[in-house]
């Protein structure tokens, strides 16, 4: 089944099958030791750069900043949800994502 994925509104949204599903401005917890030295990056999601699939998993490249240490930059292929039988399911906001 084809999944339509897009970055919209100058990076403000990830659209899945023509519906805006994942937005910027949220805080994500990310395990990304190559990004900053925090054991758990507290990432403010500022801008989506691109989106792709890894099987059923939807992943994004995102620009953001760790609000614990101030490191900013791009993190690649963080999961945002899954598509199962054509339905998109958001990853829980408080889940730990692995870069």
């Amino acid at each position, binding site marked *: 089944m084809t999944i339509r994925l*897009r970055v919209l*509104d*100058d990076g403000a*949204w990830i659209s899945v099958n*023509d519906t805006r599903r994942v937005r910027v*401005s*949220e805080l994500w917890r990310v395990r990304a030791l190559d990004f900053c030295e925090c054991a758990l990056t507290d990432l*403010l999601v500022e*801008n989506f750069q691109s989106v792709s699939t890894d099987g059923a998993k939807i992943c994004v490249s995102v620009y953001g900043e760790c609000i614990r240490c101030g490191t900013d930059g791009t993190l690649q292929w963080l999961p945002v949800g899954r598509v199962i039988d054509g339905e998109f399911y958001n990853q829980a906001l408080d889940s730990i994502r692995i870069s």
Partner: protein
Amino acid sequence: MPTDVERWKSEVYGDDIRTHLFEFAESGFDTIPDDERDAWFERFKWWGLYHQRNGQEGYFMMRIGTPNGVLKPGQLQVIGEIADEYARGPGVNPIFGASYADFTTRQSIQLHWIELSDVPAVFEKLEANGLSTQQACGDSWRNIVGNPVAGKDAQEVIDAWPVIEELNKTFKGNDDHANLPRKWKVSVTGSVDGSGQGDINDLAFEPAYKTRDGAEVVGFNIRVGGGLSRNEPRLARDIDVWVEPDNVSTVAGGLSALFRDYGDRDDRYNARMKFLVDEWGTEKLRSTLQSEYIDFELETAGRDVRRSYSYNTGEGPRNDLVGVFPQKDGKYFVGLNVLVGRMGAADIKQLAELADTHASGEVRLSQRQNIILTDVPESELDALLNAELLTHYSPTPSPFMRGSVACTGTEFCSLSIVETKNRQVRFARWLKANVTIPDGLEEFHIHLSGCTASCAQPQIADVSLRGMKTRKNGEPVEALDIGLGGGLGSDPQFARWVGQRVPVDEVPGAIANLIDTYAIERVEDESFRTFIQRHTDEELAAKIEPAETTYEDPMMHNTKRTWYPYAENDALDAGPEAPADD
């Protein structure tokens, strides 16, 4: 591989969008097929319509492009009437009411809560009165900016208004330039005050002299590739070209075509002209312009007047255009402060009447979100200045009121991280009431932008504020990064971001402490910007002392998770249905 946006643009773009827009307006918002909405929303931007953010389904922001901020007699009244009738929605702003217009940092006008079904009627009224939304957004020539009092200003060395009119006429609705890789922002300035802010535009024409037959003639030097967005601010770069006024349109068209042909259409993040200038350098840009786009020999740059620039420089006269100033014809222009650029519909209509009664009826918009009444005879000055409306929109406001600039923020915008306009009003009011202004400090520019898109031009303010998040007592709260020392002028500089993630309720305290420190430590009468310049980043970081004060912020929470931050029940799932056709 072309982006989705490029693919959509290749199918339908430019003037042709209008037919489809009107068809959808007739058949109803719900008739836009679900799998085509993203494409149509992207295209509608070309006609000045942005679909508002999540939770406000079916409502649009409408941008009206007013070249150089010029509103001819009667046009402000029309804006007030349209705002009153059409810019009303389910959300009511607690400070500005149910119906208002925003004056933007690019001398345009924005209305909110516009319904698709009303668009034809709004367009009809706008166009019947010489106004338009064409190319106000989208990937093409945006609203052309400049010194808002062009043609009137006693200080100008060349009247840029005919040049701007010619550019507007040539490049609006021009199929050859309708579909560019990204937005294209142009500034044309004829004044010595630098109020066109050319340095932060894709293409800037700035006044400059060239010697011809022993006499100096006035034309324009050209700079290219400025812009503030996405943590990648650039000052426009000198490409060593001077052009006489009659050739501005030809050279501007050449540069626009060069951008059209060589700009990056594969990556929208790399698409702006500033990145092409980074990649090519100015020599290659100039030689390509000459060899491929211009069929006469380009002249080298002339003698500029940048040393005289005063606008948004942080000191001196005409740091803004608020106040009473002489025109070259003996009349006056009166610049009024519009706090964060937002004015209620009733006030707009009242101001339009004042402009009719006491002046020519013409008004101008500045890049500091303020409004200027032009052509006021000396005999009418007192009556105008004594009008009750001017106690609110003052020509002599507090430095904290006149210096406040803010973008749209989470009230309507998808990108913004924080609430902005109402917060900046609260900040300004608190600072005015609680901070002792150091002697001689007449202006103090604080720009609040909700994100790195930089619509409030935060990098060129005395105090720059940019939307962030942090945790306070473990809870996520809205926060601001604090930058200092930005400004334009002969030596333009971007702010240095020395304060990170300050909770929003501690920002007024931080600014108050900073001003106190400045008052104590400044050397003689040095300006705030000069004071900042002589300190290192580390020293400045130490001078920012965030503090809780009597300021209380009701919008500490994630305002993005609301359908409208000021609604009684603001939950996203409590938002309105898309408006029904009527």
